């Protein structure tokens, strides 16, 4: 993977995925040689708010022994002076060994990669992709239930949820059975359905979780956002239908794990946190070793 960009899960093979996850497991177990990255600088360019992704990249680089530079908020940067993303990238690539980019426009990371000689890591491009979230999702799945004969339900906002789009492509590579559960108005976008169909993915779409809950090994819940609905009533009605509670999980397999990319609002009731199903905090913690592994694999040729 040396010096490649990480833009989308579409371009990751199963081998690439397993290489990162194996390295993450190794790092979580025995750590790394921090002296290798003493001179390495990672740039964090977040044009949208982020807590987990930004802080875990920051932590990952520092735990590897390197340092980070942070553009800070958009309000305090030269973006407010009208600088293009392309120009920002052309400048920052001269400062850092790799760039982590989050941007509100779809395709931003792809465009940035055309202007940079250092690796660009897509940390979310609008409603497009979020490949490093997928890697930590897959790490959580592999550590808990394994990839063999995997049956996963993905529920919530499938239309605009970039974590969902990235995850679906990657699950196709590991031959998982994918059940997509959402209101009709928030189905997977045409482009993702097209790719899954072309790749011969095992996919079913549902509007009711009840139809599939008992067959699942993993239930991946995402947030349905208020702004996707024209009025408050419609939002409340739909959001209520896709809310997970302890009672709802009684119909599930005992070994089912419940995941969520976080932040959650109320789509998972707090009571679920203490059940044996909950894995979303473990999932968030996995962001550090997985991003350490990814950085290590991307940068290993440069560091001595």
């Amino acid at each position, binding site marked *: 993977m040396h010096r490649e960009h990480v833009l989308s899960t579409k371009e990751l093979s199963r081998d690439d995925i397993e290489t990162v996850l194996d390295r993450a497991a190794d790092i979580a177990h025995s750590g790394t040689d921090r002296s290798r990255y003493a001179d390495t600088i990672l740039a964090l360019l977040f044009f949208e708010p982020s807590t987990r992704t930004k802080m875990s990249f920051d932590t990952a680089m520092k735990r590897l022994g390197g340092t980070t530079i942070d553009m800070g908020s958009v309000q305090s940067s030269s973006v407010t002076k009208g600088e*293009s*993303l392309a120009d920002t990238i052309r400048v920052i690539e001269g400062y850092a060994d790799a760039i982590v980019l989050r941007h509100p*426009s*779809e395709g931003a990371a792809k*465009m940035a990669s055309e202007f940079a000689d250092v690796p660009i890591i897509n940390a979310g*491009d*609008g409603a*497009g992709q979020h490949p490093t979230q997928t890697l930590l999702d897959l790490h959580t799945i592999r550590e808990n239930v394994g990839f063999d004969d995997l049956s996963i339900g993905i529920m919530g906002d499938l239309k605009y949820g970039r974590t969902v789009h990235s995850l679906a492509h990657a699950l196709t590579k590991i031959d998982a059975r994918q059940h997509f559960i959402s209101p009709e108005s928030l189905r997977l976008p045409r*482009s993702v359905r097209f790719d899954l169909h072309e790749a011969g993915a095992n996919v079913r779409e549902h509007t009711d979780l009840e139809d599939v809950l008992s067959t699942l090994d993993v239930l991946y819940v995402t947030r349905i956002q208020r702004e996707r609905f024209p009025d408050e009533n419609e939002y409340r009605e739909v959001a209520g239908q896709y809310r997970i509670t302890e009672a709802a999980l009684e119909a599930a397999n005992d070994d089912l794990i419940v995941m969520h990319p976080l932040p959650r609002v109320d789509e998972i009731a707090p009571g679920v946190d203490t059940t044996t199903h909950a894995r979303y905090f473990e999932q968030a913690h996995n962001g550090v070793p997985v991003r350490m592994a990814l950085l290590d694999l991307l940068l290993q040729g440069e560091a001595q």
Partner: protein
Amino acid sequence: MTDQELRVSKIESGTVIDHVPGGHALKVLAILDIDGSDGETVSIGMNVPSDKLGRKDVVKVEGHELSQNEVDVISLIASDASINIIRDFDVVEKSRVDRPTTVTDVIACPNRNCITTEDEPVQSKFDVLENGVRCVYCDTIIREDLTDHIDTA
């Protein structure tokens, strides 16, 4: 001269686009950004009987030789079209359209959130699918109404 040929008269120089699917001639003109307001001489045959297509359209444009870019885009809506370049009433070049694998800077991405719609130094680029086109940057697929998104500016 057969009855069929008589319907659309010969041109002196320009381009004849033949074997356009029946009913698509106006879309071809839209792609070429021709609406008659610039005074070009244009002849159109619509739904003319054709051995190959059943019904076909023919578009003849006087004084305009198509560029490769224009041919590429026409291929997206008329994959069987043939292009005849005419000079002094003679066909000097005859070719079938060839579907390109990508088209650059001819289609505007309809996704308002796509990076190519912003003020960035990047041209739109679409992969050509069997049925439609797909933005290389944001993955948006266009199948219907492709001509609405042709960027003729």
